């Protein structure tokens, strides 16, 4: 992230928590609702202590009624409050699509600018330990498809806090897509409230041979892949879009104009995904002057299986990322990183199952 002037290391879930707490402190209209936000686990720690701090009027669980509760949050937002609605898995948001797509996204426009929906939806992608088909989906593309919604995907603790605060201040519905495997990762996080602006892609690492655009926790995997590639003499530029929608593609296009090679690594399916969108923007770019080679990686075009042998093949990994990048840079190469080098970041940190 952009040289944060802090020496305090915070975990991702702590940063989410601090962001919400500060947003609630600075604006009494902010409240938080969602299944289990007030229990002793506090959404893996990310909401822990908030009910004690702000009271049960401002931090409360809900019935298992995702559809209506989304409507309630939207209505409260229209009436001037600033709700944060929390879902422990993105998969469950399929129950909220009607309210999000047909009401939240459209109200400001459909009502001629007379209504605003300052709603924040926090949602988490699950992975590993057999979470399987219905606890693993990264469905950001569906939301990015719809004008009126904003979608952000913090890949580190610094962004987790800054995007939370920005989302609460924004006057539009914003979906924050978090990742379970990032919850225990640490970065430098300033103590004071700050925002990470929407619509600005970040160059995470500069490089000259190939551009890798990575989404959510794939940023972490891409960084590991870049290490492997660097040992092979390949210089990788890594870009984290941060905001999935509205997307800042200019930063990506500039990088691709330099490297001529683009690997997009998504934390979701490829078909009609954000990886397709990025590729399409590059194809239509007015910035890029050279011919570009493009390749996409993401979830396999299957449902997510639970068993580890299949699950490993389902996800992009530092190994598959590095090999795909190598293939773009040097199609003749038969290089394959060895398995010890490829151990995934999360394998050290995450102990499942939820």
């Amino acid at each position, binding site marked *: 992230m952009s040289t944060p002037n802090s020496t305090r290391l915070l975990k991702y879930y702590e940063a989410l928590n601090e962001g919400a707490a500060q947003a609630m402190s600075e604006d009494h209209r902010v409240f938080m609702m969602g299944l289990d936000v007030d229990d002793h686990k506090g959404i893996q720690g990310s909401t822990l202590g908030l009910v004690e701090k702000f009271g049960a009027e*401002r931090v409360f669980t809900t019935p298992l009624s995702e559809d209506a*509760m989304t409507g309630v949050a939207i209505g409260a937002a229209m*009436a001037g409050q600033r709700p944060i609605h929390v879902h422990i898995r993105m998969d469950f948001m399929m129950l909220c699509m009607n309210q999000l797509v047909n009401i939240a996204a459209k109200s400001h426009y459909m*009502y001629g600018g*007379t*209504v605003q929906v300052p709603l924040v939806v926090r949602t988490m992608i699950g992975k590993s330990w057999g979470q399987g088909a219905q606890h693993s989906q990264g469905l950001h593309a569906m939301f990015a498809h719809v004008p009126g919604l904003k979608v952000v995907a913090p890949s580190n603790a610094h962004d987790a806090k800054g995007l939370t605060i920005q989302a609460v201040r924004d006057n539009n519905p914003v979906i924050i897509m978090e990742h379970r495997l990032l919850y225990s990762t640490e970065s430098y996080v300033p103590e004071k409230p700050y925002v990470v602006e929407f619509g600005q892609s970040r160059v995470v690492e500069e490089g000259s041979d190939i551009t890798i655009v990575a989404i959510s926790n794939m940023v972490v995997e891409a960084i590991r892949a870049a290490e492997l590639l660097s040992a092979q003499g390949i210089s990788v530029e890594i870009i984290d879009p941060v905001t999935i929608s509205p997307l800042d593609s200019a930063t990506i296009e500039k990088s691709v104009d330099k490297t001529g090679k683009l690997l997009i690594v998504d934390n979701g399916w490829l078909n009609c995904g954000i990886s397709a969108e990025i590729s399409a923007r590059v194809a239509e770019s007015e910035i890029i002057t050279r011919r570009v080679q493009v390749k996409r990686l993401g979830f396999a075009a299957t449902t997510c299986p639970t068993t580890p042998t299949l699950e490993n093949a389902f996800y992009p990994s530092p190994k598959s990322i590095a090999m795909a990048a190598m293939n773009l840079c040097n199609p003749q190469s038969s290089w394959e990183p060895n398995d010890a080098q490829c151990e995934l970041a999360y394998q050290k940190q995450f102990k499942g199952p939820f």
Partner: protein
Amino acid sequence: MNESLSLNARLYEQVALIRRTEEVIAEIYPSDKIKSPVHLAIGQEYICAAVIEHLKASDYACGTYRGHGVYLAKGGSLNSMMAELYGKSTGCAKGRAGSMHLVESQHGVIGMSAVVGTGIPVAVGYALAIKQKKTTDVVVVFMGDGATEEGCFSESINFAALHKLPILFVCENNQLAIHEPIDKRWATPHITQRVSTYGIPTKQFSKPDIFAIHEYVGEQIKQMRQGAGPCFIECFTHRWSEHVGPNEDYDQGYRSLEAAEPWRKNDVLITLGETLAPALRDSIDTKIETKIQEAVNFAEQSPFPDPKELYDYVYAK
């Protein structure tokens, strides 16, 4: 709403305004000037008139795509509504909404939705905001019988009852969803009884008795302002027009004019009008005609939005 009038006159004025407005809409409609699907509530206006008579300016009301009456009763500008139907930039949503998504935030008209049932939880959200802000305002949300079949209806009632939110749910049961009769959709007719299991006051009105509705709702809303929590009423009623469009459709075979007769004979516009002195009634009628004519003129003379405005309001600043 003219406060110096008697209750009867005030209610009459409201019912008549809505009725006449929709009749004029139906007259204009074949000209294709109104390029918006219109869902008329002719015959059903007495419900929103009775209920909304109890609301203050700071209270909220939410209707459906069949929402002209709710919009007008809550104080929405007739000019802005008519212009909206015409797709003009002076419309209440600057031409982006048409008849199905009326809104007027200054008068507490919650934006309406053309996806059945979706307005219900949104209205509950307004009630939640009221509770959080600790004011004594209330919300009324109108819905059809069909809307109660949507899961979000049950979810919304439960949440509102759980949190004792200041909201009145009004089911306008015209026994039809488009052309489908209620017995093809409801396992039993016991909705009011069902809602009462959520521990909230409920009442069913099987006749078009505007005063009975008015009285019951008045009492409930008073208690609601003091924190009593939500309430539900079911009003049987009859839709005179086709589901969407300007015409009647008793000739289409899916319902009969005979079955409609008890309702049409007891038209509240007439029964209520008969309680007024003819002179008073005439003066109200005249005022209404003028008002509607002005609105039509306003709509006709207003400009269409400039195509360049297409990208305005995608995101709020």
